[in-house]
């Protein structure tokens, strides 16, 4: 055994490991969040959530703790999508999380190349899972997942953006198959959540 533990062999081993790490560029960025974090957040006051804009999204069930950017519409009147695959975008022409109405947040999902993206595991959310949004004043608002639905990418869906009978947070990402012609997946996955009183 001792004869294998030569400096030369150890050097080769280290080089191989380093090379593999660089080669496959393991997406080591994780979204680690302890359940205790959201428990602490839930204890705080949610009453003044509408005074600020959302800046942080937390979904412990799938390990998400990311920044939120504020975006509006593209030139073809679609909700704009996040500029980075590791953060999410809030639709700033709609409701704010905690307002009456539908607040909408979108995030990327990966497609074929082994790259990871923030909402890769969004479809794994279950009814009852908690979602929390923190605004720029540090005030959190918590929501509970109510349902998950898939739409065609070209659907215009008021129930995602315009419901006004409650305080909703709807999360959007892509699903379906890749449409090369339109350079977008064929489906959209929407997670509907309602504010926890």
């Amino acid at each position, binding site marked *: 055994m001792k*004869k*294998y533990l*030569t400096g*030369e*062999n150890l050097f*080769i*081993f280290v080089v*191989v490991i380093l*090379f*593999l790490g660089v080669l496959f560029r393991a997406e080591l960025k994780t979204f680690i969040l302890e359940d205790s974090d959201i428990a602490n957040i839930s204890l705080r006051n949610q009453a003044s959530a509408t005074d600020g*804009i959302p800046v942080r999204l937390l979904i412990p069930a799938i390990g998400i703790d990311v920044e939120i950017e*504020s*975006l*509006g*519409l*593209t*030139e*073809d009147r*679609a*909700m*704009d*999508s*996040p500029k980075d*695959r590791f953060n999410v975008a809030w*639709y*700033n*022409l*709609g*409701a*704010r999380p*905690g*307002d*009456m*109405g*539908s607040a909408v947040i*979108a*995030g990327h*999902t*990966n*497609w*074929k*190349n*082994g*790259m990871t993206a923030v909402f890769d595991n969004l479809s794994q959310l279950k009814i009852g899972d908690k979602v929390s949004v923190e605004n720029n004043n540090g005030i959190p608002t918590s929501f509970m997942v109510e349902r998950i639905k898939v739409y065609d*990418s*070209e*659907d*215009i*869906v*008021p129930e*995602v*953006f*315009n419901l*006004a009978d409650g305080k909703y947070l709807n999360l*959007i*990402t*892509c699903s379906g198959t890749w449409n090369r012609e339109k*350079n*977008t997946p064929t489906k*959209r996955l929407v997670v509907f959540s309602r504010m926890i009183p």
Partner: protein
Amino acid sequence: MPGGVQTNYGVGAPYPQAGIDQGSALVSLAANPCTYTFPAGAIDLATDTTHGPIGVYTPGVYCINGAATIGTAGITLTGNGTFIFRMTGALNTVDNSSVTLSAASACNVWWTPIGATTLGANSVFEGNVIDAAGITMGSGANWNGRALAFGGTVTTGLNAIITAPNVCAPATTADMYVIKQVINNDGGTKVAADFTMNVTATNPLLASFAGVESPGTFITLDAGPYTIDESDMSGYTKTLTASCSGTIAAGETRTCIITNDDDAPIASGSSSGGSSSGTIRPRISVKKVPSPTSLADGAGTVLYTYTVTNPGLLDLDNVSVTDDKCSAMNFVSGDDDNNLELDTKETWIYSCSTFLRQTTTNIVTATGYGHERLATDTDTATVVVAMTPRPTVAGVSTTTFTPSFPNTGIGPDSESNIANIVVRTFGILTFLSLLYIAIRKYRQA
């Protein structure tokens, strides 16, 4: 719009009137013809050389069919006049960039992007932005002007500063575009420059000048009464739009269009009812009225009513009425004798209904034929749609517009380029080689 007391609009939010006012301002700005249109696509105003000297802009209306960026080198707006930068995409300034004024006032600089406005960190910016898609200032950005984002949000980064201009002195002058049109459909050969435009007003920038086709000749004149006309030209029939005379207010912009249509030669055997010149020109007129004329609560349905008459001497057949932004055109009434001809004493009524989500100007065109000669007329109408302000306190969101889904997929093409394939293949081969060396060393040992 923030809550609380607002100087111009009183107590409480939202402020529908503020949305209407900003919508009206946008319409007014949009009505100014482009004085320079950039090549289609995204433009970096700091490096562009198609408009003139690099980084330098004189008063005018700059139209960008795409997004606009102000790069690190920045730009200088020079000259005492109005600057309008109109773009169909977003407006972005890069970090540490600057907009500099030289003999210009931030009061008179206007930016009207369709996409969002984002000012880079520590950038310096001048002028007024009207942008429903939202405005974001990076940290340390310094802005002299106004951020008007009805329906959107204004977001400021750490230590970002917006300073409203101290004094925006009321304008004492008005702007006028004089457009010359020449129609040569009966053998005429004159061009716009053959006609001389004459301006009667107080302190006109130009009192007499050769005609220019659209976008025309831009002049300033003092507020008050004015008349614009041209020296007569034989062989042409002249028509002037209503804006070619009247009283203009300070800061107002009008467009006077003078059209000359060449007269037809005398037609033998068709002189029945003819004029003294022997020419009978078919005429048609259309007037368009929207109802309502504005939508204070945001998107809604508008009914347009079109009144088509025949002010000429010839009955018109094959009458057609089309609207460029309303397709379901209905004939309502007016063909009293049911002969399918618009007689000189008849008034035909058409209607069309459409749903508007944003402030819209559309054009109706009426055509008809008299003795197989075309008569045509147009009319425009603008309906201001107030963007619904989003509640800033807990309340019911009244937003009705539904956007399309975002594109949140990452395509396969983004990672399958040749470089990546080569790098990975090289890596795998290197790995196998190292593995082989390691095994050989092991066996030798």
